[in-house]
């Protein structure tokens, strides 16, 4: 069965206001035919989980540049599971040291895209994971 348009939540957890990357990715995903909801900055884990549930998204993209990812991502992933959204594909972007990536993957973050990643790679990854490519 052909899937409807992929629905993506692009979210900025934590306090950092660096939103260039999140906005560029949001726009690129939209241009690639996906339905994109962008939360804006300064979202708590609870707010992000709520948006993901409300918007019934397939993908949650988390952008953090402040280094708060190890504390905030588990809260979001746990919240998604609790609200029955554990099947959403979670991907991350921002300033994330390589050493954190294995731990993030264990938590359930499927990929981390650092600065310089072409948006086409992100689009391809999401489509492949959702079997829509």
């Amino acid at each position, binding site marked *: 069965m052909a899937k409807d348009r992929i629905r993506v939540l692009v979210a900025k957890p*934590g*306090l*950092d*206001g*660096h*939103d*260039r990357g999140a*906005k*560029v990715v*949001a*726009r*690129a995903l939209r241009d690639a035919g996906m339905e994109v909801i*962008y*939360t*804006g*900055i*300064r979202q*708590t884990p609870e707010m992000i989980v709520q948006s993901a549930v409300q918007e019934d998204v397939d993908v949650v993209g988390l952008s953090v*540049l*402040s*280094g*708060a*990812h*190890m*504390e*905030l991502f588990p*809260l979001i992933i746990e919240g998604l599971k609790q609200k029955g959204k554990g099947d959403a594909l979670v991907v991350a972007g921002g*300033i*994330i*040291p*390589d*050493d954190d990536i294995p731990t993030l993957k264990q938590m359930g973050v499927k990929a981390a895209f*650092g*600065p*310089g990643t*072409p*948006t*086409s790679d992100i689009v391809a990854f999401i489509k492949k994971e959702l079997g829509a490519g």
Partner: protein
Amino acid sequence: MASKNKQEWRETTLAATLKRAPERKDKFDTMSGVELDTVYAPEDLEGFDYARDLAYPGEYPFTRGVQPSMYRGRVWTMREYSGFGTAEDTNQRYHYLLEQGLTALSVAFHLPTQIGYDSDHPLARGEIGKVGVAIETLRDMEILFEAIPLDKVSTSMTINSTCAPVLAMYIAVGKKQGVAPADLNGTVQNDILKEYIARGTYIFPPRPSMRLTTDIISYCRKEVPRWNSISVSGYHIREAGSTAAQEIAFTLANGIAYVQALIDVGLEVDYFAPRISFFQSSHLNFFEEIAKFRALRRLWAKIMRERFQAKDPRSWMFRFHTQTAGVSLTSQQPLNNIVRTAWEALAAALAGTQSLHTNSFDEAYATPSEEAVTAAVRTQQLLAYESGITDVVDPLGGSYYVESLTSRLEREATGYIAKVDSLGGAIAAIEQGYQQREIQDASYRYVRETEEGRRIVVGVNEFVSPFPKITGLLRVDPEVERRQKERTAQVKKERDNSKVEQTLKRLEDLARGTDNTMPAFLECVEAYATLGEMCDVLRKVFGTQKEFLAF
């Protein structure tokens, strides 16, 4: 035979070559999209008047520099924006940097300090000691500057919506060290408007925020006269993806809004304007950046003299700090970042910056390690002491290309400023999402051009190769959060809580009225009120601001 003009040369000499060997691309342009000719010549400077458009350094319109002798007198101030963990961790890093030959400090605060939350606030989760140092009470600030005499060092603090309480802490530390406010040297960013446009650490709506801004500037003018009480910042506008012309225009449009606000509270322009400073980005496109800085100087001089009728030449001077473009750093092949940063720094130095921060090569991964920040400091020292560029003022002045590009960027920026004016000024335009939308469009355009292969990013879309994993990244110890919370709890136990309540009440009263709030902040700080407590009072009085335009 030599051509008489560019047109003739184009049709003869150039055309003959192009027939044999076409150019690499159909179109050559700067990273901001300014289309470039093959060569620049006298006809590109038609109507150019040396005295009017350039003049000698230290003279209006200061295109060639604000000081007559520039780096022959003193090279630029070398600062490295830094802060992480607790005040002890950062104090140690400052001592290290001063030992490496830096002469000035630049404080990075963690986000809760920048947005007015104490470490025990739920919104501060995961952010303690990240991207900057945790400062909540005067006790933290005392430790931050332990054994750093505040009359000997110049300190820049990147602080905006919480500028008033943080500056009050700095003044209070000075007093404890026996340094009078009049002997303090430094800068606070205190530029709230670009926070709404690009950087995101606002708390209150623009209008009460502007009142705090003018309170700080007028207080400093009287009590801390050597302090640069505002640093109008284009850096974050550029980092958010603007073009060079937009960086010029939106910075200066914000500058215009501040000058107008200060005039509106009854101050004479020449009373405060000499203390206004600026902060810009130096991005990848070498000549465009040099032209941008020169255009900024010329345009600001004209604005101050013609629009605001300032008479004091110091009011006309565009004095600026530069940081190399963080957004140009790549996580791929990270050592390349040292080279990118070096030529970005070179552009700023060739264009006469007053101070400079060079980024560290590991910043696409983490806050800089000691090794990485040392390489960044050395880059500045190499430029200043080995390259010879500091020996002559404005060495590129008179270049057909640089002058033509300077004028072109000035014209384009003037158009944007007119547009902002027509929307009702910088604040009204921000409320309508104008600058935000323009920047987003430019940012996306640039990414598209890169991804379509129109622009090469070495190690990213060309010359890709495996690279060794970067090691020795700075990690903020998870213990930092516990230690920070403990210290604030201890301060709260030891302080006189009735005194705290009394000073917070006075802050609230002043915030509701129109008198300058700075003395009340100083009293709160000296009673060891926390930053969160002071900001809660202001949130109650001023309300809070939501994001103007998300996407």
